[in-house]
C-alpha cells in the first residue's frame, strides 16, 4: 500500500487527571475516507484538535506525508494543508461566495498604476473552476453566504480549502445541520474529493452517513481506539456495540452496509 498521508503513533492528551486521548494509533491513506466514531466524550474531538493544531499532544507523534510534524497553532496545520471544517464553517455571511473562497488571500490588480484593487473577475472565474471540478453547483457566486442553504455553505467551505491545496480534510459533523437531500449532496461531495485522491476524516454521529461514505471506520471509547474495521466488512449493529462497549455484539453476516 502507498505511504500514509497521516500517521498517528501513540498520541496522548491529558487534561489534569483525565486522559482524554490515550495512546491512539491511526493511519489515513491518500484517497481514503475514514470515519471516526464514538460516543460523546470518547475523545474524537480532542484527537482531531491535536491533528489540526488546536491542542498540543502530551505524548506520541504525528507524521504527515512521511515526516514528523509539530503543530504550534492551527495556522501551522493550515500551511501544511491540513484543513478542518467545523460545524460553524467560518464563513463571512455578509460576503459572497468567491469573496469567501479568497478571504484573506484576495486577488488584486493595479489601478491607475497607483494602488492595487480587488480583481473580482479573476476571483469569480477561479472560484467557478474549483467548484466545477468538485461538481458543486451554486446558482450565483455573487450571492451572499447568508442567502445560501446549509449544504451550499458546506460546499463553499470545502471548495475554499481545496482551492488552497488542502491535502487532508477533517470534517466535524458535516451533515448535522442539513436536510435529507442536502446531506446526500455533501456525502456525494466527500466521494468526489476522495476520488481526486484527497483523504478525508469524517466525524459523525449519523451511522447511515458513515456507512454510505467511508472506506474504513475507527471507533473510540473513553479515549482509546477500541476497534478498526473496513466499512464493507462490518455492520451498523456491530459498530453500535463497539461504540457503547457492550460485550455481546450481535453478528449479522447477511446484513452488510447500505449501498456505497
Amino acid at each position: 500500500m502507498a505511504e500514509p498521508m497521516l500517521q498517528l503513533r501513540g498520541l496522548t492528551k491529558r487534561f489534569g487527571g483525565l486522559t482524554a486521548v490515550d495512546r491512539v494509533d491511526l493511519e489515513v491513506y491518500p484517497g481514503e475516507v475514514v470515519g471516526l466514531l464514538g460516543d460523546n466524550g470518547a475523545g474524537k474531538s480532542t484527537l482531531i484538535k491535536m491533528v489540526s493544531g488546536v491542542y498540543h499532544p502530551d505524548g506520541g507523534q504525528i507524521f504527515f506525508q512521511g515526516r514528523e510534524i509539530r503543530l504550534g497553532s492551527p495556522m501551522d496545520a493550515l500551511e501544511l494543508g491540513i484543513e478542518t471544517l467545523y460545524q460553524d464553517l467560518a464563513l463571512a455571511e455578509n460576503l459572497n461566495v468567491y469573496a469567501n473562497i479568497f478571504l484573506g488571500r484576495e486577488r488584486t490588480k493595479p489601478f491607475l498604476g497607483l494602488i492595487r484593487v480587488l480583481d473580482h473577475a479573476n476571483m469569480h472565474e477561479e472560484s467557478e473552476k474549483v467548484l466545477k471540478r468538485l461538481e458543486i453547483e451554486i446558482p450565483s457566486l455573487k450571492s451572499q453566504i447568508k442567502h445560501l442553504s446549509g449544504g451550499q455553505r458546506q460546499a463553499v467551505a470545502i471548495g475554499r480549502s481545496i482551492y488552497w491545496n488542502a491535502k487532508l480534510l477533517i470534517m466535524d459533523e458535516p451533515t448535522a445541520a442539513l436536510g435529507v437531500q442536502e446531506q446526500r449532496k455533501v456525502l456525494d461531495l466527500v466521494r468526489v474529493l476522495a476520488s481526486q485522491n484527497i483523504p478525508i476524516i469524517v466525524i459523525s454521529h449519523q451511522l447511515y452517513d458513515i456507512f454510505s461514505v467511508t472506506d474504513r471506520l475507527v471507533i473510540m471509547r473513553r479515549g482509546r481506539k477500541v476497534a478498526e474495521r473496513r466499512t464493507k466488512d462490518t455492520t451498523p449493529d456491530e459498530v453500535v456495540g463497539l461504540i457503547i462497549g457492550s460485550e455481546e455484539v450481535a453478528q449479522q453476516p447477511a446484513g452488510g452496509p447500505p449501498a456505497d
Partner: protein
Amino acid sequence: MVPEAAASTNRKATAPARWLGRNWAIVFLLLELAAFGLLGKNFFSPENLQNILVACLPVLLLAMGETFVIITGGIDLSVGFVMGFATVVCAKFMVLLQAAGLPPWASIPLAALICLAIGLIPGLINGTLVARLKVPPFLATFGLYGIAYGFSEIISKNTPIGGLPPIAGEIGNEYFFYIVPGKTVSFLVKPQNLAMEEMRSMISVLPILVVIFFVFVAIFAFVLRRTRFGQHTYAIGGSMDAAVRAGINVPAHLTWIYIISAFFASLSGVMYVLKYVSGRADAGSARMLDSVVAVVIGGASLYGGTGAVKGTIIGALIIATLETGMVNLLIPSHNRYIAIGAILVIAVLIDQFFPELVGRGE
C-alpha cells in the same frame, strides 16, 4: 447544490415594500427637501443648497470614520470630543506658528498637518484598547470621550482659542467661483468695486471647504469599496472568527480602523477651525450623535458587516438638510436634536424588527 434557500430570501416582503425598505433614506431626503422647499424662503436658491453641503461636512467627516468602525461591528463614541481636541490643537498651533513669524500660507497648512498627526493618537489608543486588550468598543471610546475633552480644556484654558490668521477664515468661507450675471466670472477672489445691485445678484459657486474635504471622503470611499483593506473590514464585521481563520491580522486591522476614525474626527476639527476661525473643546460635542445617526440611516447595521459611504453621505445630507431647513424656518435649534434622536431610534427599530424589509439576513 439545490437553490432552495436562495429562492426563499425575500419571501416575507412584497416588492414595493422591499424597495422602500432599501431606499427609504433617499425617499426621506427628497420628502425633507420638498417640505422645506414648500415651507421655507428661497430654500432652493444656489446659495442655500450649497449651505446644505457645507453644513453636511462636519457630520459627514465624523460619519466617514464611524462608517468603517460600525462596519466592523464596533462603535466610536469619542469622535465628537476628538474633533474638539483637534480644533483646539489646530487653532493653538496656528496662533503659535503665527507668533513665531511664519506667514499664513505656511502656518495654516503646517498647523493642520500637526493637528492631523496628533489626532491619530486617540485613534491608536482606542484601537489598542479594542483590538489588543479586548475592551468593548463602547467602553474604550467612552473613556477617550472624557480624556480627549479634558485635554482640550487644559490646552484651551477653558476658553475658545482666537487670534488666528484671518486668511484661515477666507479658506473656510469663500468659494472657488464668483459669477455676476452679465458682467464677470472670477476665480477665488471676489470681484471688486461692484455696485449694490451687482453684489446682490452675485452667485458664489463651489465652497472651498467642500472641495477640500470631499477629496478625503472620495479616497476613503474607494478604499472601502475597492481594496483588500475594505474587504477585510466587511469580513471582520461579518464574522470575526472567519476573518481570524482566514489569516487576516484582525488586531492590526481593527487598530487601523480606529485610527481612521480619529483621523476623520481631526479632519472635521480642521474644517471647523477654517470655518469659524477658532478652536473650542466642545466644538463637536453634539456631533457624535449625528455621526452615528448618519451611518445608521445610511443602511449600516450596528451589528456590523454592512454599510457603505454612499449611504453615509445620504445620512449626512438628511441631517444637514434638517439643520439648514430649521434655520431657514427660524425653528429653535434644540428641536433638531429631538428629530435626529427620533430618526436614530426608528432606523434601529426597523433594522431590528424588519431585517427582511431592509434586505438584511433572514
